[in-house]
């Protein structure tokens, strides 16, 4: 799959027969030049795309018929008549974006530029796969029916709490990858494809959050950034030369598996510093009465969550502060190793635990600055993400926009006017329908929310 960067760099050589001037290929070129803002007028399309005036006029007429571009605005005159601006019709259709975490689900609506239009987040227990898939469908249905003119849906992009290993040559998914134990049997991708009849893409939460932070958060304009998500699992994402690093198989940043030790105990970073450790130690402190604050919370709520411990630490509970500081020191140690290796400009800490607590941030900062080479920390900034789960939604939207307009996929659907009409996609959908259990007659309607 090509990134937007690769799509933009697809220029042709002069003097050779113009394969790219066959209708579909040059339509793809012209659309991506306009979409990515590399050409905003007909003159710029001729110059940047190296196309003749007639070709540009013809391709723009086709793209306008397909409602993928419009020329409704005028630019700034530079001597003569003001030129008409050629603009990408990002409202032509919508993208649905989903973020699934261990304890929350978020669903959003985005335009074809990958800009978020609307979003909703709620707490969910993802151990019940059927209920989770149904809930995602219900929220998508609500999100789509809230739109006034029932827009076309051109893709669904999902961020999930685990590495997503997929075939790099596949244009979209047709079956659910095993991103968490047994989730390949959940039917998530298959259900979404059948119910909403749109292509589905999936990446890890950490990767999409890194992408979201790069495009909409603290990472805007950054060339090198280390992104660390702290929750039940601890993962990292990397931005290098302004682009997210995907790795050989999409399994980047699984730092939660690294072994660490603390006070004579050893275990993985997930087990020793993640949300489960904070919750377990907080519960013990509440039960023993070591922390009066947590004991009070336990008496009222009947349980203690990692968030409760973080909030107790924030309002001055010493025991909770010590638990959170332990987490910070261990995570800081691993992050310092990464920082010394990668020399990032910026480290962003995110996830529910980082979000609710300044003590964790302080503890990680102290450890990283203390354990890193002075050249590494000289201009290094360590920040808490302000985007929360929106980072994953925004990153998922960017993933979908890139995949949808990847020249390899785009050439297969552009003349049809919709990716959902692509024959290969329709065939794949038919085969999904054929493989459904016999007792299940026809696709069920999306549940009403």
């Amino acid at each position, binding site marked *: 799959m090509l990134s937007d960067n690769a799509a933009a760099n697809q220029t042709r050589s002069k003097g050779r027969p113009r394969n790219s001037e066959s209708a579909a290929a040059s339509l793809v070129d012209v659309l991506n030049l306009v979409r990515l803002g590399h050409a905003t007028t007909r003159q710029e399309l001729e110059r940047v795309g190296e196309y003749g005036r007639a070709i540009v006029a013809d391709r723009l007429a086709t793209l306008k018929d397909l409602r993928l571009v419009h020329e409704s605005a005028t630019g700034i005159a530079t001597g003569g008549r003001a030129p008409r601006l050629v603009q990408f019709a990002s409202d032509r259709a919508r993208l649905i974006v989903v973020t699934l975490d261990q304890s929350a689900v978020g669903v959003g609506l985005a335009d074809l530029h990958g800009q*978020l239009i609307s*979003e909703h987040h*709620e707490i969910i227990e993802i151990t019940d796969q059927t209920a989770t898939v149904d809930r995602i469908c219900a929220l998508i249905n609500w999100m789509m029916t809230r739109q006034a003119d029932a827009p076309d849906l051109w893709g669904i992009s999902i961020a999930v709490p685990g590495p997503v290993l997929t075939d790099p040559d596949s244009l979209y998914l047709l079956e659910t990858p095993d991103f968490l134990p047994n989730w390949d049997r959940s039917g998530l991708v298959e259900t979404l494809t059948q119910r909403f009849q749109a292509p589905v893409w999936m990446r890890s939460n950490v990767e999409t959050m890194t992408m979201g932070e790069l495009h909409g958060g603290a990472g805007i304009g950054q060339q090198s950034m280390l992104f660390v998500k702290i929750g039940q699992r601890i993962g990292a994402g990397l931005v290098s030369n302004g682009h997210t690093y995907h790795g050989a198989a999409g399994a980047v940043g699984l730092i939660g598996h690294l072994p660490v030790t603390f006070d004579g105990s050893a275990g993985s970073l997930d087990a020793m510093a993640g949300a489960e450790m904070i919750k377990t130690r907080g519960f013990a402190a509440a039960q023993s009465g070591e922390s009066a604050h947590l004991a009070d919370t336990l008496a009222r709520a009947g349980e203690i969550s990692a968030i409760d411990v973080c909030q107790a630490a924030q309002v001055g509970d010493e025991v909770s502060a010590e638990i959170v500081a332990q987490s910070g020191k261990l995570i800081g140690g691993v992050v310092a190793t990464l920082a010394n290796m990668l020399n990032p400009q910026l480290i962003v800490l995110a996830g529910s635990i980082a979000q609710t607590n300044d003590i964790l941030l302080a503890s990680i900062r102290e450890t990283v600055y203390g354990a890193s080479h002075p050249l590494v920390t000289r201009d290094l900034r360590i920040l808490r993400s*302000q*985007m929360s789960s929106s980072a994953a939604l925004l990153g998922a939207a960017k993933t979908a926009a890139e995949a949808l307009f990847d020249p390899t996929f785009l050439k297969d659907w552009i003349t049809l006017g919709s990716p959902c009409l692509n024959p290969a996609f329709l065939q794949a959908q038919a085969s999904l329908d054929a493989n459904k259990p016999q007792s299940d007659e026809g696709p069920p309607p999306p549940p009403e929310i």
Partner: protein
Amino acid sequence: MPVVGLGPHGERASPPERVTLLPQDIADARAKNLRVAIVMHTLESDWSRHLVQGVVGQLGECGAIVIDVVDCQFSAEAQIAALDRLRGEKPDAIISLPVDNTTVTQAHLAVSAAGIKLVLIDNAPTGMLPGKDYASLVSADNYGLGKIAAQLLSDHLPADAAVGLLAYDADFFASNEREIAFSQWMEINRPDVAVKTARFPSIDSAGNAAIRLIDAEADIAGLFVVWDTPCVEVIKAVSPRSKALPISTVDLGQDVTTNLAEGGSVIGIAGQRPFQQGEAVAKTTITALLNRPCPDWVALPGLSVTRSNVIESYQYVWRKPAPRDILIGLDVLRSS
């Protein structure tokens, strides 16, 4: 009652105690001679008036002068004009309740860009981020309010009934949360009940929306209206036609509270705590102006109000004794 919803970006709620002001904070704020403006979506509702009371009182305690309180009458144009004008006044902070999720975004971003601290109430336009584009969002747990309203109405619904959900036809965080939570509670706890949704674009049109819904869905046995002011319109429109239709809503406005106390069609209210929310807004504003870190989302849990606890709930929300007609309606005061 714990907060059960998440913030507009999936944030976990912080309790109002996170923005507690110590005597030294108040002294520091007083020394700054702060000026603050308030831009509300409306000042017509009792909820708005109570919230502004809470804000103004707490700011006064901190020596901060309120230079303007604007009523935008749910108009995006009015809000944009107000924010542009107030920006020129160079206050230290603006407290705003954004009227929608898209059209007022740029006007709010311009406030932050001008170096004015921005604290939001109840709604964060899409794309604006806490700590970057605004200091903090302070709201009720609107998801929890939707669940409370569903639970209250459920007790009055027969088996296999339908329920009408009168939702606001605008992309607005607070009302979206209530709508989604109400439906989800019914789906989980009353799978026999079908939820039928109708949307109203303005308060005036809520009554007609309810009538159309009832006409189209004959088996509707109850209604939920996402807040009290349109609920008053719904009661006016529906009462002559469906005397026995139970209704639940959000906010202890005067009219719906009286209706509840008198044993009218309103059978329960998910109450917000606007005065306390206003105080939390003011404390958050002062915290931001002292350049101390603010939580991304401060949320206050809701109250479940029925006829049995309406008097004490009224006192709690309105900060004054319940009116005589409510007391008489509940037989705790003789009419003479």
